[in-house]
């Protein structure tokens, strides 16, 4: 019960932050309340009454914004506290809330899995609350009211936390819808732009279709059990066929929210148009809540996992991972790129979950625990570095007034801190050793390499192929983020705005980035801390823990056994420091050559190097475009303006490149056409003639009477 208190408090504080935001235009009300309260203590000076000083007209909006984010931050910290407590206490707590329908109280359960995701949400929300005040201050109140943003941010966070707490299908769906709908308003926040409205509508549509699938999935389970609580659903005795139907429905619903290919299309549209700290929450955390739902449904509620489901997850995950990163690479818009890269990372998580399921169904719970652990760790890591990158993108958008990678450049000199923190994010997401992204990928490879224990020939050849795809994904991600960092921060500035850019003035924004970057590095060096906590989750879900992961000292990571594989980030770090330190000292000891001479870069002797001669993002990815040409719909046009005698001289060349997803024309447009055609067919019965409508009513009545009389 002690564990639940901070969890409830976290939810309440996020609600409170949302409600407080509504007070933006209620200053007089608050003031009169304060004065009335003060009237009870007549002895005091009016100036010394608490709160009245804060309600001063000119400073009120700023104070209010800060207060809203402080409440949100408290909510985040409480969520971290609750999550850690649940992981440490290793027990599941249940409770009932008297809300909801009279005969159906809301059931709450807080166990290791919920606790772990609470931790993810909490860290992200804390970082966002540091970042928020600086970020929202540029919004004009008339056009973008803070009340709306603050209210829905609070509701969104509360919704996510409630999803994690829910222990019955009814409560789960209510929380899920709260999360979806609140985030719809956040996506539509800057609705003056038609593209944003379209993105928001697409998001709402897909979120609701997904929710429908989840409801149906729960419905299948509920059909075989008595009640909607998860405990009852766990007891449901399903045939394999019905269980598979439930699995497919859950996969469709949660997969749509998580954004796996090909049902990912809302994600690259919706994430970039929301304010950056909201994109960070959506990409870093909301997708994880969908992953939570899938894990809860497939590993907890559905009793016996089938290896075929694992294969489905594995294949879908592989396609998402490869597709996500290849699409990401082609995006000139930074936030779109990051959104596509979330598709990639969710794909990796799904892959490893698939592996876990395959091992579980084949009777290797210990390896299943390893896979589950790798998936959860990757979810955690992705939340850290994706938040970092999205928040960094928000700073860039503020300072450079653009998100177009091709209009930036050279920012490392103008924004040294942001660039360094962004570099850490890029290194983590490219899964380089010493950073957190590498650890989860390493564990994923270790899981895949245990394929030897399986008997099934199909699985034995499929899993290595997916491991190969994972390797390709990692390498492509590194290429993609070299491009991102190199083009944005290095080289010469490509536009006037990036030439004049300044470091962000707000300390909180940079502090949020520092927090996340520090965590990325910390958990890259000491992954055993979080892995120890994850063992609790594995124990509760699968009933198995990793053999030695926690028995070994904090220095070593050896998930299967020391003889099979080991990795010690601490020793690697020490080695790097010694090697770098020694060479650095040794090579610069001669005072004559210690200083460096600056000189112009090599220009082939022609002179006049300028920023436009640098590689652009489409130039950088050109080799990939040629090699993987089939993956995209590429529309490349080169127009030449001719002049001079007989139009033979080229005056100007226009280059236009459009890269599109295959899923639009292949999947969505046919569905849209189908729905329109069906609507037209249905439209035929609407003649507009009152007698025909009366006829319909009459026929319906007759049919009903006949049905009743049967």
């Amino acid at each position, binding site marked *: 019960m002690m564990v639940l208190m901070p969890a409830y408090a976290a939810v309440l504080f996020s609600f409170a932050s949302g409600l407080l935001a509504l007070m933006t235009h209620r200053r007089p009300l608050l003031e009169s309340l304060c004065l009335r309260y003060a009237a009870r203590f007549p002895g005091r000076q009016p100036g010394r009454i608490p709160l009245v000083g804060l309600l001063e007209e000119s400073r009120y909006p700023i104070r209010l914004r800060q207060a809203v984010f402080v409440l949100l931050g408290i909510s985040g910290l409480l969520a971290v506290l609750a999550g850690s407590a649940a992981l440490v206490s290793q027990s599941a707590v249940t409770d009932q809330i008297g809300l909801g329908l009279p005969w159906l109280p809301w059931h709450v359960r807080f166990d290791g899995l919920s606790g772990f995701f609470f931790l993810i949400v909490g860290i992200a929300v804390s970082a966002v609350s540091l970042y928020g005040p600086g970020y929202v201050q540029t919004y004009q109140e008339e056009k973008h009211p803070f009340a709306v943003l603050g209210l829905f941010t609070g509701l969104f966070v509360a919704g996510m936390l409630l999803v994690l707490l829910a222990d019955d299908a009814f409560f789960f769906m209510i929380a899920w819808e709260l999360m979806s709908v609140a985030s719809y308003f956040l996506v539509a926040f800057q609705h003056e732009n038609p593209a944003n409205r379209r993105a928001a509508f697409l998001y709402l549509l897909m979120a609701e279709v997904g929710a429908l699938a989840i409801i149906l999935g729960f419905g299948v389970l509920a059909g075989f059990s008595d009640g909607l609580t998860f405990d009852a659903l766990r007891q449901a005795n399903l045939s394999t066929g019905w269980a598979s139907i439930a699995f497919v429905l859950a996969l469709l619903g949660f997969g749509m929210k998580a954004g796996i290919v090909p049902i990912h299309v809302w994600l690259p549209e919706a994430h970039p148009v929301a304010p950056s700290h909201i994109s960070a929450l959506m990409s870093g955390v909301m997708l994880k809540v969908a992953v939570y739902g899938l894990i809860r449904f497939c590993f907890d509620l559905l009793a016996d996992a089938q290896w075929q489901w694992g294969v489905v997850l594995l294949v879908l995950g592989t396609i998402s991972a490869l597709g996500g990163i290849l699409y990401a690479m082609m995006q000139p818009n930074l936030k779109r790129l990051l959104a596509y890269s979330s598709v990639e990372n969710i794909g990796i998580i799904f892959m490893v979950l698939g592996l876990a399921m395959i091992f579980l169904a084949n009777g290797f719970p210990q390896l299943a625990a390893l896979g589950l652990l790798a998936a959860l760790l990757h979810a955690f890591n992705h939340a850290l570095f994706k938040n970092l990158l999205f928040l960094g993108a928000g700073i860039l958008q503020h300072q450079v007034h653009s998100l177009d990678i091709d209009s930036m450049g050279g920012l490392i000199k103008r924004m040294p801190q942001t660039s360094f923190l962004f570099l850490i994010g890029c290194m983590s997401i490219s899964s380089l050793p010493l950073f957190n992204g590498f650890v989860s990928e390493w564990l994923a490879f270790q899981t895949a390499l245990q394929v*030897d224990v399986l008997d099934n020939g199909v699985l034995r050849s499929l899993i290595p192929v997916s491991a190969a795809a994972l390797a390709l994904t990692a390498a492509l991600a590194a290429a993609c983020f070299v491009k991102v960092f190199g083009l944005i921060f290095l080289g010469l500035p490509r536009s006037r705005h990036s030439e004049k850019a300044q470091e962000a003035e707000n300390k909180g924004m940079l502090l949020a980035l520092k927090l996340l970057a520090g965590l990325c590095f910390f958990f890259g060096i000491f992954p055993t801390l979080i892995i120890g906590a994850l063992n609790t989750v594995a124990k509760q879900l699968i009933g198995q823990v990793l053999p030695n992961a926690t028995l070994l000292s904090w220095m070593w990571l050896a998930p299967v056994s020391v003889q099979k594989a080991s990795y*010690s980030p601490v020793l690697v770090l020490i080695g790097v420091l010694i090697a770098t330190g020694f060479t650095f000292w040794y090579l610069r000891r001669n005072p004559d050559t210690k200083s460096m001479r600056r000189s112009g870069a090599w220009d082939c002797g022609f002179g006049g190097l300028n920023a436009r001669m640098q590689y652009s993002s489409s130039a950088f990815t050109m080799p990939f475009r040629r090699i993987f040409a089939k993956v995209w719909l590429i529309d490349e046009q080169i127009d030449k303006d001719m002049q001079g005698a007989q139009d033979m001289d080229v005056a100007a060349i226009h280059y236009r490149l459009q890269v599109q997803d295959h899923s639009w024309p292949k999947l969505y447009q046919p569905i849209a056409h189908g729905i329109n055609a069906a609507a037209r067919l249905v439209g035929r019965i609407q003649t507009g003639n009152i007698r025909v409508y009366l006829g319909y009513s009459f026929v319906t009545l007759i049919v009903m009477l006949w049905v009743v009389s049967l």
Partner: protein
Amino acid sequence: MNWLLAVIQTLLFVALAPLLSGWLKWCKCHLQNRKAPSLLQPYRDLLKLIRKQPVVAEHASWIFTRSPYIIFSAMVLAASVVPLIAVDLPTAASADVIVLVGFFAFARFFLALAGLDIGTAFGGMGASREMTISSLAEPAMLMAVFTLTMTASTTNLSLAIAHVLNEGLVLRPSFIFAMFALVLVAIAETGRVPVDNPTTHLELTMIHEAMILEYSGRHLALIEWASQLKLMLYGVLIANIFLPWGIARDFSLHALGYGLLAISGKLAVLAVCLAISETLVAKMRLFRVQEYLSFAYLLGLLGMLSHIILEASR
């Protein structure tokens, strides 16, 4: 004692790397009817560069000036993991073969960033091409290495090699595929003909050289040394994974000396093979490289599948 030996082995790795490129150059010159420089020429070049004051492009940031140190130490760490003359050294446990690939990725990441940092077309060109080639080569390498690790059922390189030694001479089809894959990857990753030409400075074809065009002085020395180390690393990987015989299994002076002789001999022979192939084969067009690397990837995958289907004990 073991740790001391591990450090000594790493230092030996670092110290011998220039000699291997000297030997390679010597062989190539003799095959092409040219007069060869001394075997010690790479050492002289490195010393000369270290003594010089570096000249840095005016727009370069700290990424450019710090990258050589990062790249070099990543390679040194990689060298500390790969068994050169003895197996069972303690450093091998701190990082397994996947981390080794990670070290290469780390070095490459910063090399590509350094290329982009100076703000010229060459840097971007080199970075883009290097990342393209490596993103195809890295999975192929992992596939080849996974064949080994699945045979030995460990990703610890030292233990895996010990496993191969224990098994004795067994003909494994998977190892033949994996070896060819690893050889192809090694040629691509170390920038040798037919993928890249280490001696070229022709703008249209260069990859590695394009990125390091602006480097000079001690920075250039570190980068050169790092790429010599990389060449040797791949050589040792091929030699010790697929032909591990001769490597020291206990730490007696006799065994260690024998191990050193064995690896020198193997590397010398590998270098002669490389020199012959570089003399006979012409450089490929850039967009043929993908076919070459997909072939390597396919070989790696075939190796892995043939291990699973033909060799695994079930």
